[in-house]
């Protein structure tokens, strides 16, 4: 009898667990030593990292960084009871214990982004008491476990490219310092994506589409936010109904502005491509290179208005050669669509000599 009761209790516990899995492991997130594998944080309900746990909210950016055509799935977690502080500019103020989750994945065929997906890595930005920490977890072939890779790695990804040809991507998992190279503001690790302006757009939640700022506020994730209509908004780089200049500036902000801003690691270049910049020479118009070396490609200025073929910025976007290509990290392929957008933008600018 007693044994039967024990069995029943165990069954009940198992059933309860099935209904409500253990919550996100805040202690693991805040532990000084990073977990050896991703599952320790319990950010996902399943071993395959597909179903977010309770309190883990998916989000997307209006204009993201190009990462060799990887599909990116983003999630945010904030400890129960805590809230994200709204900021009009810059990344939001995340409370201690928050984590930003980004999983990089490839479909077998880039033309069918929702099918036969293989997860490559999941990156975490964890807000600890002393600041942010960046970690990268690489998924195994069985897709049931992701393990910590601190020193970075090169992975060979096979896929079919957008033209139907076989493609091998020399995918780079960043090391912890490389995470910081991009995620650095005045030398401190800092999130890039979750800014009011880049979150100010709709997301297709399971219960229906909703503006992300409104959703975050409604579910108690965000405090101090105005109505989405009075918050700033980054254009969608791939939405052709938006003005060309706004799309191009959004693209440059997301793909270059994290380093090329006054507080970023490329601050010494004097080339600032963040959306807040408005001085033409700092934006590269007629600006001569400083430390570009062979990256200049024999061209004289970063942006020659009206002349994309005379613009170093276009040249470096069109290269996939280390030492020439920009961004320096995060890609091995050329973003053909992004390049076409920036070429169109530079072409549209009035030439200086006319």
């Amino acid at each position: 009898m007693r044994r039967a009761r024990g069995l029943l209790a165990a069954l009940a516990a198992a059933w309860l667990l099935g209904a409500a899995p253990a919550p996100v492991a805040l202690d693991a997130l805040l532990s000084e030593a990073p977990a050896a594998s991703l599952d320790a944080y319990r950010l996902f309900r399943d071993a395959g990292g597909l179903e977010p746990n309770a309190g883990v909210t998916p989000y997307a950016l209006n204009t993201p960084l190009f990462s060799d055509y990887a599909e990116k799935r983003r999630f945010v977690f904030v400890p129960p009871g805590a809230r994200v502080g709204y900021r009009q500019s810059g990344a939001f103020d995340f409370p201690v214990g928050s984590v930003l989750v980004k999983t990089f994945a490839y479909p077998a065929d880039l033309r069918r982004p929702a099918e036969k997906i293989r997860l490559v890595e999941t990156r975490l930005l964890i807000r600890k008491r002393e600041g942010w920490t960046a970690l990268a977890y690489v998924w195994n072939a069985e897709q049931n476990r992701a393990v910590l890779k601190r020193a970075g790695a090169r992975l060979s990804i096979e896929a079919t490219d957008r033209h139907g040809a076989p493609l091998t991507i020399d995918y780079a998992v960043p090391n912890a310092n490389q995470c910081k190279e991009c995620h650095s503001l005045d030398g401190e690790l800092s999130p890039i994506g979750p800014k009011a302006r880049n979150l100010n757009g709709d997301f297709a939640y399971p219960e229906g589409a909703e503006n992300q700022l409104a959703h975050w506020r409604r579910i108690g994730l965000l405090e101090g936010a105005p109505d989405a209509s009075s918050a700033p908004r980054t254009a969608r780089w791939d939405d052709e109904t938006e003005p060309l200049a706004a799309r191009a500036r959004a693209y440059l902000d997301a793909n270059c502005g994290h380093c090329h801003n006054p507080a970023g690691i490329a601050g010494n270049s004097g080339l600032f491509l963040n959306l807040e910049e408005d001085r033409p020479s700092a934006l590269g118009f007629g600006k001569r290179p400083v430390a570009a070396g062979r990256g200049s490609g024999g061209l004289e200025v970063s942006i020659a208005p009206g002349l994309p073929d005379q613009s170093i910025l276009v040249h470096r976007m069109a290269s996939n050669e280390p030492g020439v290509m920009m961004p320096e990290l995060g890609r091995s392929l050329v973003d053909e669509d992004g390049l076409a957008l920036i070429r169109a933008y530079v072409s549209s600018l009035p030439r200086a000599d006319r």
Partner: protein
Amino acid sequence: MKRLALAAAALALAGQAAEAKTLKVSPGDDAQEQLQTALLDAKPGDVVRLAPGRYVLVDGLSLDVDDVTVRGAGPDKTVLSFAGQKGAGEGLLITSDRVTVRDLAVEDTRGDGIKAKGSDQISFLNLRVEWTGGPNEKNGAYGVYPVSSTNVLIDKVTVRGASDAGIYVGQSRNIVLKNSTAEFNVAGIEIENSMNADVFDNLATRNAGGILIFDLPGLPQMGGHSTRVFRNKVVQNDTPNFAPKGNIVAGVPTGTGVMVMANRDVHVFENEIAENQSAAIMLVAYTQAFDDANYNPLPREIVVRDNVIGRNGWAPQFPGGAELAQMTGGVLPPVMWDGVTVDPRSGETPAGAGKVMLSNGPVLNLNLPAAGAMDRARPSVTPTLGAETLPEPAAVVLPPAQAALGS
């Protein structure tokens, strides 16, 4: 009580020292991960020690921990080869303070060799950075590249093959660069947009230009000043300029000894300057258009004295150079100043413009009405030029612990 506190502090210090450890790395198939992991695991006070051998690396390395020494077994024994590099803008990137890199070589990086960004007390000692295929415009820009840093020590460093400057210090303060060799680069040594630099006892040879002291517009730190260039050997800089166009050094004439552009308070003395076909010493204004209210494009408060000057300037490689040489007896005088004293924005002569003390002549003054206007030169040659008394900048003093690292 006070004594107790002192004793505790001493204990704490001793404890810290005792904890400092050496992380050993050796060459092998997993060199990339092993070395990068050591650079991540290092704690302040630690030494990352690289055993002799050849390290084949495929990605850039980086260090972001303060108070770390990265040490090899010697620049010909511990060699980091980046010939197969697939990513990153440099071989090794340092973004932390009080870091020393010493006794190793970095070869064939796709971009820059060793870069330090925003570092305080950064020391490069007994290093070799080289592009082993010789001068080529496809080589990386800079060999040793501290930027936006303070207290920079470069001692016994050799750089070969950089497509911009072999040893380049940019937007930094308090710099000691000595006992180093720069050869077969476009520029041997370049100090740019920096304050307080002592450049001495170096050899700059077989570059297109030997030593450059520049200031450029449009950068976060401008107004470079207070540099002493002394006791260097700047000889036979004869490698044709192979810089990719667009870069400022692409405009440096092949066979330039020392060039000062748009900088202030630069003293060039007791150097040996010979066998540079364009000119021994050139003082010039910034020639390109610029849009920066805070930039001063003129060289000013420049002193040239007591250099040992051999044969130079017999075949100047700049527009109008051959004609000028003809006018001055076939060979340019050892010191050439473009003579520009007018700010192109205001059309006026700013305070300090034209303040020079060039006693190591003869001096050729081109008297250009504007930067680069060679067609309107009114050359004049005088035994010396300027009688200003221009005090020498004080010697650069590094923090004692860092200064003690040097030879």
